[in-house]
């Protein structure tokens, strides 16, 4: 009706000015982020990958608080065998050699947590060999175990912050005491062009109370993740009018501004900020329509919904985030960052009652995560989508307070899938009690490097002047797990 008429008129206007201003706006839109006032000396990346990418998008799941590697992906029968002994009494006392512990960089002096726990604590759950690969996964994660042949399990991770600042460290590669640095998602956003003109390219879901809600840092706020709620009625801040304003009225307002600015651009063709603003209206208008559609699951079959656990109260919330992630990737979102488990320093922070804690938390993620992997696979999307399951650190082989485990930075596990990685493989290992990563050790930025490599980016070429990064910031791609 009238709305369509208007839309057609607007299109016609744009078409008419093709080669004039409209086309400039469109080309700016099709490019990467819009930069109004780039410095003269140096230009940011042009949005093209540095080499042929193997993956287009990342679904980055982060378990706040620290998932125990010992009760999920890294079985340690020796722990059960020596349970109750102190580490010094066990055959593995050399793990506490001060030289081997020197990597820890303490943020909170004399903190009650983040200590070495002496008394070995038995594994709180049984493991089983699963899939064709026979990789062992604990009974906390039977569904994830069911897709183990699609996963790469990286068991030799280490980090340096013995407190939850390791959450930011995992995302930026730098210890909290070094300051704040861009996170991986921000680098990807900064380095790569858009896959969609309708959606933000870097989205954050879930809770990240413990750390600052910024990502871009010195790359600038335009590279911060856009926080999105899985709620089609109100998906993002200012995503819908806070006072009565009908869709038709709103369209007319957007239209008028765009036409006035386009008219202005005829007189000011050299004003780059103006062209950037024009493009941003277009995107804003499309974004607020596209996002609710992407988050509306009514078109998903009942079978798919239950694959993600939407039909069960325990799995519903995370399942909705996983399903939303698939739908967003389908629509061309680059990087989706999901923080699971809010409250305090993170839901997974099992200083006490580890068994109860991980029973409940694993239950929440198991079905949805496995559902995501199998759904991506059957839709042929897993090849081009990297799925990552990470956490800030593992948990101590020794017990804290008799029922829990403390923060553990010397060895832990990260799991990845898709995006051109090998499937059904284990890479790296911790020692027999799961204390130190001893084989194929990897610092957190090696995960970043692996992802960037699959996305066709060279982090050294992304570096910006006056912000020299350290060797370790760049990390090294884990070639062994790349297919």
């Amino acid at each position: 009706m009238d709305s369509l008429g208007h839309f057609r008129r607007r299109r016609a206007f744009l078409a008419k000015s093709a080669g004039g201003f409209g086309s400039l706006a469109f080309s700016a839109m099709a490019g990467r982020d819009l930069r109004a006032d780039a410095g003269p000396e140096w230009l940011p990346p042009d949005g093209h990958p540095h080499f042929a990418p193997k993956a287009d998008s990342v679904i980055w799941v982060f378990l706040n608080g620290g998932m125990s590697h010992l009760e999920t992906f890294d079985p340690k029968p020796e722990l059960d065998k020596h349970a109750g002994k102190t580490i010094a009494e066990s055959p593995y006392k050399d793990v506490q050699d001060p030289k081997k512990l020197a990597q820890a960089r303490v943020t909170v002096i004399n903190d009650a947590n983040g200590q070495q726990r002496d008394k070995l604590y038995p594994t709180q759950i049984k493991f089983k060999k699963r899939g064709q690969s026979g990789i062992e996964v604990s009974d906390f994660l039977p569904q994830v175990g069911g897709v183990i042949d699609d996963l790469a399990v990286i068991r030799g991770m280490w980090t340096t912050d013995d407190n939850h600042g390791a959450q930011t460290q995992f995302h930026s590669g730098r210890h909290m005491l070094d300051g704040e640095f861009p996170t991986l998602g921000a680098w990807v956003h900064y380095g790569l062009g858009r896959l969609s003109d309708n959606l933000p390219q870097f989205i954050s879901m879930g809770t990240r109370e413990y750390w600052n809600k910024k990502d871009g840092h010195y790359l600038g706020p335009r590279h911060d993740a856009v926080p999105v709620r899985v709620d089609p009625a109100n998906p993002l801040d200012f995503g819908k009018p806070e006072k009565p304003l009908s869709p038709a009225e709103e369209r007319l307002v957007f239209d008028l501004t765009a036409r006035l600015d386009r008219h202005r651009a005829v007189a000011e063709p050299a004003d780059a900020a103006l062209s950037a603003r024009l493009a941003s209206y277009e995107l804003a208008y499309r974004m607020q329509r596209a996002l609710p559609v992407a988050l509306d699951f009514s078109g998903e079959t009942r079978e798919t919904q239950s694959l993600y656990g939407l039909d069960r109260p325990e799995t519903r919330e995370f399942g909705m985030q996983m399903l939303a992630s698939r739908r967003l990737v389908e629509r061309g979102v680059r990087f989706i960052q999901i923080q699971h488990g809010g409250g305090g320093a993170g839901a997974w922070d099992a200083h006490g009652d580890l068994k109860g804690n991980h029973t409940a938390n694993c239950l929440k993620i198991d079905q949805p995560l496995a559902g995501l992997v199998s759904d991506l696979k059957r839709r042929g999307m897993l090849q081009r989508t990297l799925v990552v399951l990470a956490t800030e650190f593992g948990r101590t082989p020794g017990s804290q307070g008799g029922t829990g485990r403390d923060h553990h930075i010397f060895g832990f596990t990260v799991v990845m899938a898709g995006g051109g990685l090998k499937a059904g493989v284990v890479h790296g290992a911790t020692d027999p009690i799961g204390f130190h990563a001893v084989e194929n050790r990897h610092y957190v930025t090696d995960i970043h490097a692996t992802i960037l490599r699959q996305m066709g980016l060279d982090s050294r070429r992304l570096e910006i002047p006056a912000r020299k990064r350290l060797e370790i910031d760049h990390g090294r791609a884990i070639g062994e797990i790349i297919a």
Partner: protein
Amino acid sequence: MNCLALFLLVTPAADGAKSAPALDPLVYPGKIKPLFAVRCLACHGALEQKGGLRVDTVADMIKGGDSGPGIIPGKPKESPVWLRSAGHGNKRRMPPKGEGEEVGPEDLARLEQWIASGAPAPDREQRDPDPREHWAFKKPVRAVAPFPGSNPIDAWIEKGWREKGLAPRPEADKRTLLRRVYLDLIGLPPTPEEMDRFLADGGPDAYGREVDRLLNSPRHAERWARHFMDIWRYSDWWGLGAEVRNSQKNIWHWRDWIIESLEKDLPYDEMIRQMLAGDELYPADPSKLRATGYLARQYFLFNRTSWMDETIEHTFKGFLGLTANCAKCHDHKYDPISADDYYRLRAVFEPYQVRFDAPQGSIDPAQGFPRAFDCNLDKTTHKHIRGDEARPDTRRKMPPASPQFLNFATLNVREISLPPEAHAPETRPEVLELFLSQSSEALTSAKKRQEEARHSVIQAENRPKAMEIKPGRVLLAEPFNQLDAAIWSPVGPGKWKSENGAALLADASDKRSALKLLRPVPPDFELTLRFRITGGEPWRSVGVSFDAAPGRENNVYVSANASEPKLQIAFERDSQYTYPEAGKQARPIALNSPMELTIRVQGTGVEALLDGKPGAFFRVPDRKPGDLLLTAFTATCALENLEIRELPAGYQSPGLKKKLTVDQAKARLEWTNAEIAVLEAEPATLRSRYQARLDQLTLTPEKSKQSMARAARHEAGLAVLKAKAGLAKARLDLAMEGQGKKTQVEAAQKALAEAEKKAADPGEKFTPLVVSAKAPESNVESAESKARPYPASSTGRRAALARWITDPNNPLTARVAVNHLWNRHFGQALVPSLFDFGRKGQAPSHPELLDTLAVELMERNWSLRHLHRLIVTSRVYRLDSSASQPAEQGKDPENKLLWRFPSHRVEAQVVRDALLHLAGTLDLTRGGPPVPVADSSSRRRSLYYFHSHNEHQKFLEQFDDAGVLECYRRERSIVPQQALALTHAALSLEAAAAIAARLSRPGMSDNRFIEEAHLVLLARSADAAERELCAGALRDLRAENGQAPPESARALMVLALLNHHDFLTRR
């Protein structure tokens, strides 16, 4: 050349000149020299020549250092430069581990090839200049202006134009210019009246008069305060939960100091001195002490080194444009700042800590302003080996000193002895009076409570014994044998029918289905509904709504939702539903099983019981009469029976206070009596404590002994009275809450016995009054350190540094200040690397201009206002901003030489403030505690919002609000969220309506309205095309929303203009 380089790489390494292939002459300047620059020059260049070797020229390398030549042309494998880079031989690899990346194989091969081919050098290769000769490290001088003119700025700008053959834009039209200077100087656009005044003033200096008016406005101080808050990293506190980890509470006192200082045009050098050392220079002046909030801001609970590092980094970047932070782990790679220098700077700050002094007229440190003071005078500073905190070099103590290379002056450190009121603020004259008056107020209110207690004893004694609770009279009994249309009216989509003695709703809807009761119900009532939930998805909620009216109601319902079955008390106000946690009770609810929901409403108290079991109690915000409905939401149900009764006689909401028994009332009276005894004895104790502290500081120990003993005696006596009051309170709790409190009574008795024992021998130890509190020095501070009195002197180190920074011979301070000011006025700086004036920084676009302004600033007593005036009255500032001048666009597309005014997007604060200002709703209240970020309805100026690392005001955040960790330059991104915020935020929608209403006059035509709106919002007339577009939009909008009043279309047109690029741009 690329082919050749590739060829070189694949050629097997050859030893000896004979077999060397032809070498590309560009390999040395293009590849090898830059490699040396990054890996070697820090130690072997102009700055330093370790081992006597420098590698900035080939000649120097051949000449070599203490141990012979660095390279032997033709013989790479005998050349130490190659050997050391390759890590061959028994000598240490270069660069040493930890000081630079290894030279990679490609570079090594290239280096080898180059040496093998004879190490050809370019003609007349020059050594790098001595860094001490770097322009920014030499004192600025005022150069003779190339063209005489009234404003020195324009002469230097014009020089740039002439050299490049640029024709500047003409002067901007008056409206644009006025809007520009308003946004710049006060952060608000001109009102139509202000615009008219300017346009009507044909005088030769109309503009100058406007500038003066603006510069003298308090709005100017607020606008520019935000600028300095960016640079000085203003931040409210943040941490985890209630724990302060960064910055400090009440830091806004420093913000107010910044605003007041700018308003007074306090000289910039004096501002620096007060911020870095107000406590040493003006120890007894609380108003100046607020300035040291700058140092309180640097606070970090967990790690002193991080705290010190940030203090050094940003003091040097912000005031001096030096990246001293780079010298933390090793000597600075580009500037002559050594790692030793770095730790000498740390020694300047090492003794300081943060404390809170109660503000004037208050004795509460929690209300105090955070300020710096030297706390640990003897704390030594050691260099951290390679910047590793765990490896201090304890052999050497680092003394406080300024960086050695800036040798115009050294730090003149003199210890400062502090007056008693500075280190013992509890001895300030007004303190005793304040304590006494607080005590007397407490006594007055205690006496009031005593009177009430007496009264309740009498009441309790005369009250008749409570009667049995009887059910109230039945007002309505509804067995649902039929649905009488005179009693029930269906509301919403569902169809209700009566069947087998129940009202059935067979179809579930996501719109609510309800039965409205057509009979009146009294405000207080009891209701019991028997029903079953029979199906639906997903919420399956059935219950009662009362006080129902459009947009508001109160609800009690049972939800058989699969994941969260519950009983819930909720309410709707202004069409917003609230489901309070306190009004919720999780209950297993099965489909098809009969339930009985009982609701008791008394005043605002709502009690809900399910199947006779107590459920939830919640107090709704308020009550207004309305309808009663039985409701079903995404549910089907069978309602079986309903009874509405009066409340049982004597019913009391569980939330109401119980009436006291005689014993309870008496116990309460006892307690108030005991409290009064405490308060009556308090003044004497306060006086003696005050006096004892004063005597302790001013008299000999012998003489002060007597008053200390008296204070101790008073305190001990008061402690006994307090213990008695504690016992009375424990007895009251026992009477109120029963035997569970018995142990508390016993504990209180024990405490009383101890207090009495102490009172028998009080000694001489007394507690001074407390009006100040130190922030924890770290998360593990010892009790002893916490209790230590403040030192009676200060090291004077920070005062010395502040004097050094503001020394007129310091080459950097004034230049950096000028550059910051220029950056905010023009949206681009003279030195683009705002915080780095060192050798790695960028060169000034107009060096003589920068220096002239720096000298001007210092010679005019560091008056920022003088500089502002000079800048905004210059010709270049008044130029038109259009970029449409192809010749100039071609020669200087970046507009570095300012042939036009560089238009730019306004800051976040300006966007929000301008909306409110034009709407006429801006609240100009000044200063005070910050507005919480959640309060989006506040109309205060944006700089008053709470602003921290963790809390961001949502609207401001969309427009690149200042980062608190570092913000030398605002980002000016253009992202879609900005368009969404400007179109959807209540702020914009309300502003658009208010602006349209203010612009409209009776009988005003659309054309007139369009014109006025353009003038006010964009400071220019609408042209024909714009008029046509707006008029068309108004027509379409009216067609779209038919019945809406015509103004609403105009409001939406204004909304579109608020999104206009020109509205968001300072043209």
